[in-house]
């Protein structure tokens, strides 16, 4: 019984950690969307900012990956 509750907690926790992936998706979309909005206003400056774009995407995405990691830890390591 206690084991069942613990296992349920694991699964519920892993599922809730997946919400973090959605939050990271919002962040990544925000970065890319703002880049595009800026790039369309000033196309000549866009090419020089792609490196910054990818750095921003990487930072936003890393936090989503942390959420994924928490889910993995709950499922397989706890």
């Amino acid at each position, binding site marked *: 019984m206690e084991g069942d509750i613990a*296992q349920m907690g694991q699964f519920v926790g892993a599922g809730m950690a997946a919400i973090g992936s959605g939050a990271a998706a919002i962040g990544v979309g925000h970065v890319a969307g703002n880049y595009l909005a800026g790039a369309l206003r000033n196309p000549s400056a866009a090419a020089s900012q792609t490196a910054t774009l990818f750095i921003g995407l*990487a930072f936003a*995405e*890393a936090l989503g*990956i*942390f959420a994924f*990691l928490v889910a993995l830890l709950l*499922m*397989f390591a706890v």
Partner: protein
Amino acid sequence: MADEAHGDEGGLVFHPLDQFIIKPLFGDGPIHWYTVTNSTLWMAIAVLCIVLLLVTGTRKRQMVPGRTQSVAELLYGFVYKMVEDVTGKEGAKYFPYILTVFLFILFANYLALLPMSFSPTSQFAVTAVLGVGVFVIVTVLGFVLNGPAFLALFWMKDAPLVLRPVIALIELISYFVRPLSHSIRLAGNIMAGHAVLKVFAGFAAIAAISPVSILAIVAIYGLEVLVAGIQAYVFTILTCVYLKDALHPSH
């Protein structure tokens, strides 16, 4: 525990994370640090492919490059420009290391997309060595080149004096989280992508939704090709950004 989770009743045919199991190539004894495993094999194949590309690419050099030479020159020029853009002229000295890291991750990522292959970059142990390696190199380099002035990285000169200790603390924490996020980003991306592919492959066994799931596999495979390249690029450009901090800590 993992076996109970996906049970006998209606679970997937195989577990989506089974593909990341490390197996010894010869026999099945315990794994020591010197055991040749499937991970070792695919890392070796990646290195072999890089050597092959660069050696054959530069053997018969011509003014008008052939196909192999073009690819080799393209990769070399791309990374060189990236290092120079981010770190400046002084950073070009460290270009060989960055090219090595970039090519290894790129080839490991792309070889992992072959069916039946193994993805070394999905292992946290592999990417942790790469990430911590960059962290140690950058920190040592920063202290060697700048001495104690390297600590100016954490002391923002243009922030109000009251806020500076708080900012310094935050900067310090974010500095030490770098190797973690740097390595987990790569491994997490590759691992998540491959796990999703296997999840859809498991769905393909159910007759009613197999056409949909096969289409989904094709689409996600295309996404994975993109992710493999982008993650290699991101890892490399972050290495360049960290290197820039070591070269010019004051700004």
